[in-house]
């Protein structure tokens, strides 16, 4: 359910149905329930009762992807975490409690992270993973200290089917015996249970109580961040898109935080209703992990974009995290602030106008004037920028302009013969002069030997 609603701040009432032959509603939010849509109902019936509710088909792949993203986000709290599909993540936090300031503070930080992702958390805390899983379902927490296992006894019978090998048939059998709480299950004769193919029940109880070990395979965080978000309603407006992007960026930041890294480029893909994709890369001048700056760049980029069609799904891909050491704040102002302002300015200009529109010029060792100056990306490092000492104008025309005859011009300096480039086909033979035009401006003109014409090539600004 949440995989559909997280992309927007104000969702319409929503319900999810499964893909069985007779589709049934399997989850409905509070507002949908208020309209009379309940899980278990046939889709057709639900449609008839509440036409305003948005019905979505269950998307298992999206659920798995979201769980992965959540795991990445949780990785900053502990490196030891295990997935319990379809909807649960188990964190081994005993080593992290001190760092995050105790149980309450840790849970709060976890809840804040999830809120940023647009998900709602239900948590439970216990010394064994299975017990924690069960407590989370009941939204309770185990008491601290010896004897915590007694708190398990109060849990309802249904939790036995969650995260264990206990089959639905066994659960039904137990329920028919009139059992409602785990305490009652525990009081049943063990041999009897084992005889009725219910060994799994004993096993689950033992694992939950910590009587037998319960090894888990730790989740390995992906080396590449890719997250997909489906919008509840396709839109071409920037604001709802930005809100959805903020959810993705929150996940990206958590992923980066777990790796102590920043990111200096990521790809945002907008999938349209007709499955065409608008994709663009957002580049920053230095590795970032700050929500405000990542969002600012995205905002500039999105607002400069005209979308060909409404957007259905968003995808954010980042695969090159850059290690970023922490920085200690300086007592007397931040000496790097100037540099940061400059980088931020260039990022902003590039995000809005495009990287091609913001560049720097650099000299290049070639005698041909057209090739002696190059446009580089604005953050290209300074190379060997030695230059000629012959007179050169501050402005160069992109292509020389024929000026007819050289009459009315006063020669100030020259000629300087430039004859070069026979080896690569861009051969030229020219005599360059500095001349004074009638309005006293200084021009850089040349006479081309190939056609004997006079051309204006630059202005001495």
């Amino acid at each position: 359910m949440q995989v559909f609603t997280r992309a927007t701040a104000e969702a319409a009432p929503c319900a999810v149905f499964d893909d069985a032959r007779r589709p049934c509603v399997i989850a409905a939010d509070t507002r949908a329930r208020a309209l009379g849509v309940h899980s278990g109902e046939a889709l057709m019936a639900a449609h008839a009762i509440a036409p305003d509710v948005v019905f979505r088909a269950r998307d298992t792949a999206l659920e798995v992807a979201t769980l992965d993203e959540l795991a990445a986000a949780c990785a900053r709290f502990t490196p030891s975490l295990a997935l319990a599909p379809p909807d649960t993540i188990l964190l081994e936090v005993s080593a992290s409690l001190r760092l995050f300031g105790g149980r309450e503070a840790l849970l709060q930080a976890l809840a804040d992270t999830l809120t940023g992702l647009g998900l709602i958390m239900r948590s439970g805390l216990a010394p064994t993973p299975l017990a924690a899983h069960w407590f989370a379902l009941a939204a309770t927490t185990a008491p601290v200290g010896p004897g915590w296992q007694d708190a398990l006894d109060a849990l309802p019978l249904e939790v036995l089917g969650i995260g264990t090998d206990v089959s639905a048939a066994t659960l039904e059998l137990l329920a028919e015996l009139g059992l409602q709480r785990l305490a009652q299950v525990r009081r049943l004769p063990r041999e009897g249970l084992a005889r009725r193919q219910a060994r799994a029940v004993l096993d689950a109880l033992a694992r939950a109580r910590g009587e037998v070990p319960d090894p888990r395979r730790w989740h390995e965080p992906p080396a590449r961040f890719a997250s997909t978000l489906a919008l509840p309603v396709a839109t071409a407006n920037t604001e709802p898109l930005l809100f959805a992007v903020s959810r993705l960026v929150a996940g990206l930041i958590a992923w980066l935080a777990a790796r102590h890294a920043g990111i200096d480029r990521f790809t945002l893909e907008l999938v349209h209703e007709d499955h065409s994709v608008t994709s663009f890369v957002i580049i920053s001048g230095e590795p970032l992990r700050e929500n405000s700056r990542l969002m600012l760049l995205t905002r500039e980029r999105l607002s400069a974009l005209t979308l060909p069609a409404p957007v259905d799904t968003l995808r954010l891909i980042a695969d090159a995290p850059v290690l970023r050491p922490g920085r200690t704040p300086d007592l007397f102002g931040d000496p790097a602030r100037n540099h940061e302002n400059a980088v931020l300015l260039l990022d902003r200009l590039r995000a809005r106008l495009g990287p091609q529109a913001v560049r720097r010029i650099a000299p290049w060792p070639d005698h041909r004037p057209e090739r002696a100056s190059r446009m580089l990306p604005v953050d290209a490092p300074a190379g060997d920028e030695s230059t000629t000492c012959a007179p050169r104008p501050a402005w160069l025309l992109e292509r020389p302009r024929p000026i007819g005859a050289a009459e009315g011009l006063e020669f100030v300096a020259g000629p300087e013969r430039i004859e070069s480039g026979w080896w690569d086909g861009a051969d030229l033979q020219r005599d360059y002069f500095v001349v004074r035009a009638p309005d006293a401006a200084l021009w850089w003109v040349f006479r081309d030997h190939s056609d004997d014409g006079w051309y204006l090539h630059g202005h001495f600004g």
Partner: protein
Amino acid sequence: MAASSALEALPSGLVWRADRLARGTTPGEPTGFAALDHELPGGGWPREGIVELLATTPGIGEIELLLPLLARTGVDRLVVWVAPPRLPYAPALAHSGIPLERMPVVVAQDAAAAIWATRQALASGACHAVLAWIERIDMAALRRLQLAAEDSATPLFLYRPPQAARQPSPAVLRLALAGDRAGLHVDILKRRGPPATEPLTLPLSRSVGDPAHAVDRPAPARAVRAGVHARHG
């Protein structure tokens, strides 16, 4: 005469006399041209606000006027060129000692984009100076740029066509530039303080080589092709 000497005896800065330029609290940034420094309030370019340069035609020395200032760009400071009408030529500027790696050139599609980029550059506080070429700009946009320039204490050198002199402007300094055989002809249209009386002519080095080598002969004879290589086209 007595009153005048009594005034002279007062500590400087206490009384401002209307026929003098205010040389007060914020000294300017030296322009590199003594004659111009003498005429500008603060003895140099203002450190914040718009400086309008109304130039007639390219090639009169409108860039050379700023070269001394631009060559002093500090480490970690930028000089942003917004929407220059032609391509700035790297060899010449590098030769003048301008750190090109800190000189981003912004290409703008239209005046609105140019104004936006100028304002961002000013507001960032990361710029030593901002140079912008904007032909058409209305009073409201000028005022916003002036405010942004004042807030971040950044000078904006705004190149405009000479016709713009007829339009009022919130700029702190307006100079009309024209070419002159002896150098750059500067007419101070507006400054803080009493209006300037007469135009100046700044001597430019024009880095075009020794004038003794100036030619007053016709163009050299056409080069004879030596036939060493095959020519294309």
